[in-house]
C-alpha cells in the first residue's frame, strides 16, 4: 500500500524557522538593521522590524530575500496577511539556491532587475519604492519574463497552500477527522 504523508509533500508544509523566533527585538537588532519596507536584516537572517517573525536565510543575501517577500506581497496582495505568510511562501527559493548555484544566480539577477527598474524610476531600490502602484508597474513591465513567472508560479502553491492562509480566507481544510460537515454547518446558510 502506497501511503504518502502530507508532510512529505514538498510544498504542502513549508516549515517556518526557527531559533530566531525566540529572540527579542533588541537581540535581533544587535545582529542587524532595519531596511526599507518593514524588514530587519542581519547576517543570515531576515525578520520583521517588529521582530514578530524571523527567518534564517542560508544562501541568498537577506536583502534579496526581503525583496522577494515584498515582491510576493505585490504579486498577491492580501492586506490582512502578515509578512510572515509571504516569507514562508518564498523561503523555498533560498532552499533551492543553496542546492543549485545556477538557480541562486537566476534569483539574484531577477532581484537586480527589480532594483534596476526601480532606479530607472528614480527610486533607490525596489524595496524602497514606497507606493504599491509604482512597484506593481515595475512588475507589470516584466510579467512575461522568466523571473516573474517563476516567482508567481511558485506562489500560487506556496502561498495558498499554507493553513494560516486558509484560516485567514475562511477555508476550514481537512474534514474527515472532524466527521465531515454533516453536523458542522454544511447547509446552514440562512440569508436566502
Amino acid at each position, binding site marked *: 500500500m*502506497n501511503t504518502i504523508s502530507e508532510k512529505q509533500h514538498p510544498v504542502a508544509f513549508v516549515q517556518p524557522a526557527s531559533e530566531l523566533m525566540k529572540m527579542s527585538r533588541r537581540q535581533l537588532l544587535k545582529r542587524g538593521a532595519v531596511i526599507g519596507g518593514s524588514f530587519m536584516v542581519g547576517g543570515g537572517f531576515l525578520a520583521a522590524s517588529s521582530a514578530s517573525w524571523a527567518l534564517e536565510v542560508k544562501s541568498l543575501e537577506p536583502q534579496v530575500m526581503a525583496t522577494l517577500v515584498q515582491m510576493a506581497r505585490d504579486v498577491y496582495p492580501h492586506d490582512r496577511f502578515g509578512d510572515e505568510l509571504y516569507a514562508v511562501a518564498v523561503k523555498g527559493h533560498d532552499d533551492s539556491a543553496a542546492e543549485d548555484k545556477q538557480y541562486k544566480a537566476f534569483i539574484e539577477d531577477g532581484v537586480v532587475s527589480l532594483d534596476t527598474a526601480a532606479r530607472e524610476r528614480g527610486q533607490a531600490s525596489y524595496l524602497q519604492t514606497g507606493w504599491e502602484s509604482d512597484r506593481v508597474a515595475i512588475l507589470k513591465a516584466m510579467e512575461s519574463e522568466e523571473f516573474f513567472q517563476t516567482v508567481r508560479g511558485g506562489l500560487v502553491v506556496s502561498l495558498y497552500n499554507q493553513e494560516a492562509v486558509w484560516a485567514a*480566507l475562511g*477555508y*476550514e481544510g481537512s474534514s474527515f477527522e472532524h*466527521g*465531515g*460537515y454533516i453536523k*458542522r454547518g*454544511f*447547509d446552514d446558510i440562512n440569508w436566502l
Partner: protein
Amino acid sequence: MTAPFDVYDNSVVVIIGTGAGGGTLANELAQKGISVVALEAGGRHLPQDYLNNEWPSFSQLAWTDMRTTSGDWRVAKDFANLPAWIVKAVGGSTTHWAGASLRFQEHELRAKTEYGDVEGANLLDWPISLGELEPYYDKAEYKMGVTRTNGIPGLPGNNNFKVMKAGADKLGYKECHTGRMAINSQTRDNRAACQQLGFCFQGCKMGAKWSTAYTEIPSGEATGNLEVRENAHVLKVNHDDSGKVSGVVYQDLDGYQIEQKARVVCVAGNSIESPRILLNSASTQFPDGLANSSGQVGKNYMRHMTGSVYAAFDKPVHMYRGTTMAGIISDEAKHDPSRGFVGGYEMETLSLGIPFMAAFLNPGGWGREFTAAMDMYENMAGMWLVGEDMPQESNGVTLSDQKDQFDMPVANVHFDDHPNDIAMRNHAYQQGMAIFDSVGATQTYPTPPYPSTHNLGTLRMSAKADEGVVNGFGQSHDIANLFVSDGSQFTTGGAENPTLTIVSLAIRQAEYIENQMTEKSI
C-alpha cells in the same frame, strides 16, 4: 484456472485500465467465470489512503506522465503538459469523480440526424439507440446506487446547492435538484452514507461514493477469476500473423518488460492513453497503428464544453462544506437551436478549496484583481457548466516527438474550440451569472475550462468501418478480439457526465464478449 495467471496463458482476457470501463468490465467478466488479467498503470489507493488536501492528493492520484498539447484552447497555454486531470490508480477516474450519473438523451445518440450538418463538425449518429442502452442504464444505476433511482433518496442540499436552487427558482428553471448521484444517501452495499466531507475530488474517505476501486475490483477478485496487476504500465499491444491481437506488453515496477498473452484485449486507459497505446502498437502489418484502417484512431477528441462561474455575495456561503457536485439544473440540456447553438448543457454546483481556487480561478492572474476574488472565498458559490462539444476530426491524440520514461512517444492532445462550443459557453456563462445575480451576487467570475476531466471520442463507435474505430459493442471494426471499453468509444459527447454511460456500455460489452467467446468467434 484461477488467479494469478501465467503470462503465457493465452486464454485470458486482458483489460488495460481499471476505471469506470475497465474495472466494471473486469468484474462483469469475472462474475461470468471468465479469466481476466487487468493491468493498471497506477497503484492501489483506498479510502484509508485518501487525503483531504488538494495538492498532496493530486500528487498521490493524478496522472502526471508527460503529455503535450496544441491548439487554441487555453489549457495548452496555462497547463501545457496537463491536458487532462485524470487518475492513475486502481479505480481510475472513478476515484476522483464527482458522482454525477446521468443518462444520455435519445436525440443525443442521433446527433448527426438531429443537429444536421454543422460546418467543421464531424458529427455522426451512434450505432446504438437509447432503447438498446436502457436495460443497461437500469443495471448500472442499481450497481452504483444512484440517488433518485431504485428507491434511493436524493442527497440533502448543501449551502452551495441552496444558492443555486434559489437562483433557479427566480429564473423559472424547473429541473433543479440535488442530482442523480452515485453517492450513498444511506448505508448501502456495505458502504457508509455520505458525511458531506467536501473532498469528493480527492477520493471519498467514507467510501460513500461509488468507485470501482472498492466495489467492482474486490468483487471480481473474490471470484478468483480476476487478477489485477498494479504498477503495470502498458506500452503496446502485440498481434499475430493473422492480424489478431495476441498479447499486451507492459513494464512493471522493477523495470522488466513483460508480455501477457491474451485471447481478447480490451483497452480502457481513458481517451488519451487508449489511442496512444494503439498508435504505439504500429507494426509492419499495421503501419498506422492497430484498429486504424479508417484513420480515426485518436481523432474526434471531445472534452465537453466546460467553464465555471463563481459568485461572491455580501454574506458567507461556505460552499466547500459538503459534496462538491451538490446539485444540478437540467433545463438547458435540451436541443434548442433558437439559443444560437446545437446541443445543450447542464449546470452543476462546484466548489474548490483555496489551493485549487488559486490555481484555477484565473490561471496566470495576479495582483489586486486576483486577490480581491480570493478574499471573498468564504462568501462564494460556484457552478460548473458542462455541455455537448462538437467532434472535430482535427481535434485529437497523435504521437509527439517527445518520449516518456519508457522511451515511448507521448501523446499530444490538439484541441480548438468549435464556434458552436464558444456560443454555448457564452450562453452558459450568461445564464450562470444570471442565476447568481438573481440571488444578490455582488460579483461574478467566469472561469475558463480546467484540464479536462471528461475525455471522450478518440476511438469512436460507428456503424460504418470507415467512419470510426469500433462497432456498437466497442469491438474494433478491424480486429475481432480487440475491444475499447472506456469513454474513447463515445461517438458524440452529449450534455451529460459520461461515467454512467461508460459503466452501462461495459455491462453490455461483457455480455457480448461472453457470447462471442462461447461461440468461439473470438
